[in-house]
């Protein structure tokens, strides 16, 4: 699989945008929602989530995160030739947001497109970006995960409104001498399309939480193992596991099923962020790096999964 590539790809910078407005569990209860902070925390691991202001959008948050990732990598807009936006929460389906983000960061004219694999989106987009670099289609790619999910939330639906939040994060992908982004293990299950999403004729995200929980805790362990196999390492050799921040209970069940040793740091960003769909994995990666618990070159397994159903994972080296 790796023998035919022109060169490897790696992540050279990470940037994030977290909206300033915090909405706590107590705030939700105070709004009249029939729930408690304790109930939400024990079922989900979430204490609060960020809510974008009226002036913040998938575009503005994504552009801010992209600019920060480019700055961290020390790359100018003129050096970027592709931008991929993973999102599922644009207010309007047409046009997509990638071109506007490219223009906003000063990279007008480059290839730009949106990719919708919902919560699985970031790992899908990262794989496409890495392949573009490996094959020489692109030199430097910005991959953005940006979501304003609160536009799609029914604040009276306590099965969903407690879970989701807004935010964006981005990475810069560029050529590398060694494998900085491993081959992707990805897949989908359209038979499960009704488990989570905006139903036909509805306007808000609905979810069968119990069914999603069962799917995530049983079907994704082999995907995680396969991503490690494709990268040529064992789960024991990982320095970190960066799963989609859907629910700490899902993450704990996955870690147990994978028998991850204590040495593997599990990224934990959900407590004050909630589930931010395609932004969740890069936001968790960004926080993990900032925490100092991992160092440059460490192998980390990313695993994104969600509505579709879609899932994708790959081993990366921490930039």
């Amino acid at each position, binding site marked *: 699989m790796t023998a035919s590539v022109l060169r490897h790809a790696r992540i050279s910078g990470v940037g994030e945008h977290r909206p300033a407005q915090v909405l706590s569990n107590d705030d939700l209860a105070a709004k009249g929602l029939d729930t408690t902070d304790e109930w939400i925390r024990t*079922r989900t691991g979430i204490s609060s989530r960020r809510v974008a202001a009226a002036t913040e959008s998938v575009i503005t948050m994504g552009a801010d995160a992209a600019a920060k990732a480019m700055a961290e990598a020390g790359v100018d807009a003129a050096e970027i030739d592709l931008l991929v936006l993973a999102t599922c929460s644009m207010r309007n389906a047409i046009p997509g947001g990638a071109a506007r983000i490219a223009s906003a960061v000063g990279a007008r004219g480059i290839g730009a497109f949106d990719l919708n694999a919902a919560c699985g989106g970031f790992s899908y987009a990262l794989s496409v970006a890495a392949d573009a670099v490996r094959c020489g289609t692109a030199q430097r790619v910005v991959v953005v995960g940006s979501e304003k999910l609160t536009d799609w939330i029914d604040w009276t639906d306590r099965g969903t409104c407690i879970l989701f939040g807004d935010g964006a994060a981005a990475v810069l992908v560029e050529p590398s001498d060694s494998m900085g982004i491993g081959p992707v293990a990805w897949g989908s299950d359209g038979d499960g399309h009704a488990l989570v999403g905006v139903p036909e004729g509805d306007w808000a995200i609905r979810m069968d939480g*119990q*069914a999603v929980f*069962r799917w995530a*805790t049983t079907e994704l362990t082999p995907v995680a193992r396969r991503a490690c196999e494709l990268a040529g390492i064992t789960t024991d050799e990982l320095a970190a596991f960066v799963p989609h921040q859907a629910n700490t209970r899902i993450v704990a*069940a996955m870690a147990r099923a994978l028998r991850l040793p204590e040495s593997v740091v599990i990224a934990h960003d959900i407590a004050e962020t909630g589930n931010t769909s395609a932004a969740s994995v890069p936001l968790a990666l960004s926080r993990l790096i900032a925490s100092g618990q991992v160092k440059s070159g460490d192998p980390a397994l990313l695993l994104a999964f969600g509505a579709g159903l879609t899932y994708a994972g790959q081993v990366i080296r921490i930039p």
Partner: protein
Amino acid sequence: MTEQDILNGLATIVNEIAGVPVGDVTPTKSFIDDLDVDSLAMVEIATAAEDHFGVRIPDDDLKDLRTVGDAVAYIEKAGVAV
């Protein structure tokens, strides 16, 4: 496998997933009210029991398994080799 074997196997699973002492997992106990096992832990217990006993416990049936005894009877009826 006897009913007692199923109970023992189930008790081990409940202990591993929810941290409930094995001795507390007796037939009359309610998972939610007595053992403090919530709906997500019930799903984990069900999937672990599926692997262990080689049975299927769909979500629709799972919600009817109120007590440990209900679960033992379900697993027995679902065709575990007795």
